[in-house]
């Protein structure tokens, strides 16, 4: 028995060494017209089919290109990309996050991205979206998705009570009161996910006090400790009576499950949640409305941010082929593929959005009409240093919801933190 185990072990080790050598060479066909392989790294598992269809579309056009896509868990993707780029082992194309952003800026400053302005046609992507990947006047990637956040609601519940989509904050409260009185949880909030609470604050803030006031803030003509900002926190703090019990312990997954399985009427979330909700409950009938304003007559604006873009590796051995791929991703045809496969909002205009996703279409239209110009969460000027509004809200929103600090103190924490580096506010 012992001998057998030793033999087995030796066999395994030998096999291990044989396999360990690694197949560094790509399997190339020996046909005269060899296909070129373009490698792409990203953090989204849902994109696998997008690239398959892209490959088909390119080959139909006559470009003999094979795309190999690998995805890595989002929380670890950045480490992997950063290390590989420095080590010279990264893929031809890789996903990047947005600007302003220290990580992406770091890549640019150290020569790990190629400016694409003169290489491909970017006319199908709106300027505001391109600004999210623009630095030093150049565009450093092809944006692939915009995200829209706001309030998503259960249409069946609203229909049952005859509620219309609220246009003012007061109307939202009225709806919540009625639901709660009837034993229905008005909001499902993921209190454990600090980032989602920061997002909640941000989406409420772009409606009231609104994009113009935030613009003043960015210039230093207003402060975070002004009542406009403080009241955002206050409104949310007052809203928590309409959240589910013990909301502070729920994750975003639990929130999604609760919402899709009709345990609550509304959530503060983003359009990307849709595929989860449909997966959990194919019959789920949900809708969207922007966060209502406080003063009747004001126009709401919506938090839209660029989710990510495709960047080109400067030391890619297959630049020509990679550029062909990137050129395609900036075209409406790609936008159509992207939205149809993932159910998310492509950054490209002129795409054909899936007809069976009315909420997606609604958000797409919203993003192109009332997107906030000035913001303070992701994709804003306040991301250019440490700490950011995002990082402070991430922790302090929980403290406020737990009653450990007041909305005034929350605002002061943000002001003090930003004042350490944001010049206009110093």
């Amino acid at each position: 028995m012992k001998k057998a185990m030793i033999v087995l072990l030796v066999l395994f080790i030998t096999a291990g060494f044989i396999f360990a050598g690694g197949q560094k060479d790509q399997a190339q066909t020996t046909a005269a017209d060899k296909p070129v392989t373009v490698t792409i790294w990203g953090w989204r598992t849902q994109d696998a089919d997008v690239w398959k269809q892209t490959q088909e579309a390119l080959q139909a056009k006559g470009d003999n290109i094979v795309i190999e896509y690998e995805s890595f868990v989002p929380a670890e993707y950045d480490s992997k990309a950063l290390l590989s780029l420095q080590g010279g082992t990264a893929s031809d194309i890789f996903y990047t996050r947005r600007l302003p952003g220290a990580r992406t800026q770091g890549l640019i400053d150290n020569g790990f991205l190629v400016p694409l302005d003169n290489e491909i046609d970017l006319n199908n992507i709106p300027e505001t979206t391109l600004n999210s990947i623009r630095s030093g006047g150049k565009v450093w990637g092809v944006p692939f998705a915009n995200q829209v956040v706001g309030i998503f609601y259960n249409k069946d519940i609203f229909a049952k009570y005859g509620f219309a989509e609220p246009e003012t904050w007061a109307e939202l409260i009225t709806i919540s009161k009625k639901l709660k009185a009837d034993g229905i949880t008005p909001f499902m909030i993921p209190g454990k996910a600090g980032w989602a609470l920061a997002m909640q604050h941000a989406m409420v803030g772009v409606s009231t006090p609104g994009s113009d006031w935030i613009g003043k803030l960015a210039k230093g003509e207003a402060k975070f400790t002004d009542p406009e900002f403080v009241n955002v926190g206050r409104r949310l703090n007052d809203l928590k009576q309409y959240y589910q019990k013990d909301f502070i312990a729920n994750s975003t997954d639990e929130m999604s499950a609760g919402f899709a399985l009709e345990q609550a009427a509304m959530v503060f979330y983003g359009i990307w949640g849709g595929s989860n909700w449909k997966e959990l409950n194919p019959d789920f009938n949900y809708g969207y409305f922007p966060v209502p304003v406080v003063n009747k007559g004001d126009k709401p604006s919506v938090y839209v941010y660029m989710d990510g873009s495709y960047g080109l590796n400067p030391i890619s051995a297959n630049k020509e082929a990679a550029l062909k791929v990137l050129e395609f991703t900036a075209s409406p045809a790609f936008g159509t593929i992207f939205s149809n496969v993932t159910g998310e909002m492509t950054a490209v205009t002129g795409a054909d959005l899936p007809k069976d996703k009315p909420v997606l279409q609604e958000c797409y239209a919203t993003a192109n009409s009332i997107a906030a110009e000035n913001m303070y969460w992701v994709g804003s000027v306040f991301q250019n240093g440490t700490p950011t509004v995002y990082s402070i809200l991430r922790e302090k929103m929980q403290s406020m919801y737990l009653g450990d600090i007041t909305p005034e103190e929350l605002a002061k924490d943000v002001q003090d933190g930003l004042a350490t580096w944001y010049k206009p506010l110093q």
Partner: protein
Amino acid sequence: MFRLNTVQKIIIFSILILWAIANIFPLGVMVISGFKSTREIFLAPFSLPSKWSFDSYKEAWTVANFSVYFKNSIIVTLVSITFTLFISSMAAYVLARFEFPGRRAIYLFILAGLVLPVRLAILPIFLLIRNMGLNNTLFSLFIVYTAGGISFSTFLLTNFFKTIPMDIEDAARIDGASYFRVYWKIHLPLLRPALATVTVFNFIRVWNDFFFPLIFINDNAKKTIPLGIQNFFGEYAIKWDLLFAGLNIAVIPIIIFFIILSKQFIGGLTEGAIK
């Protein structure tokens, strides 16, 4: 070993049963959840699945590409724990048995490796591997996993070595055996329980690690199981039914490995009882 009356026996048995329940309960939930739909996992945690479906398991197996990843995980794990065990036990032998200048310094030097989180040093390690031309190979994993197990294994084995009486060794040395022979023929067998403990520990560590494969492996064909599982933690997906099924599949080899080895060290434990 103890003389106990009936009342004492009942109390002891109750304690064991209580802890057994504390174990079976969560493990049971884990196993059964793999058979449920995501909806049921959330809303009906208590009940048995309405439909005992193997679909999640089947899908998890293919989506996570388990057949390929399994092979890689097994190879990487077995090779690295074998080497770790081999070189750590030799090192422990030297450290436990001999006095030489610098012994304590070397012992503490090796112990230091336990204190530091691996992520801090990932860039130098990555560059080392890349410079050796081993990026994107399983070989890189062999090396880092073997190296990573040295601190703990050496520490534990050194402590166990000290419990072995010197006389057996002296007798063998008088008979003319080399140090290596003494180590191989005498110490290793006596250390079986300790070796088994260290082996299981290292198996768990290597099998479940996702960080090194993430950084060093690019090709799908060389990925290991933890990376495959991560496909279920997608950026926006919450396929909990697949997740549980996948996690359960990943756990089975370890449990089997442990059950096989448990005879070794549980056997070793009761051997001592007859002493």
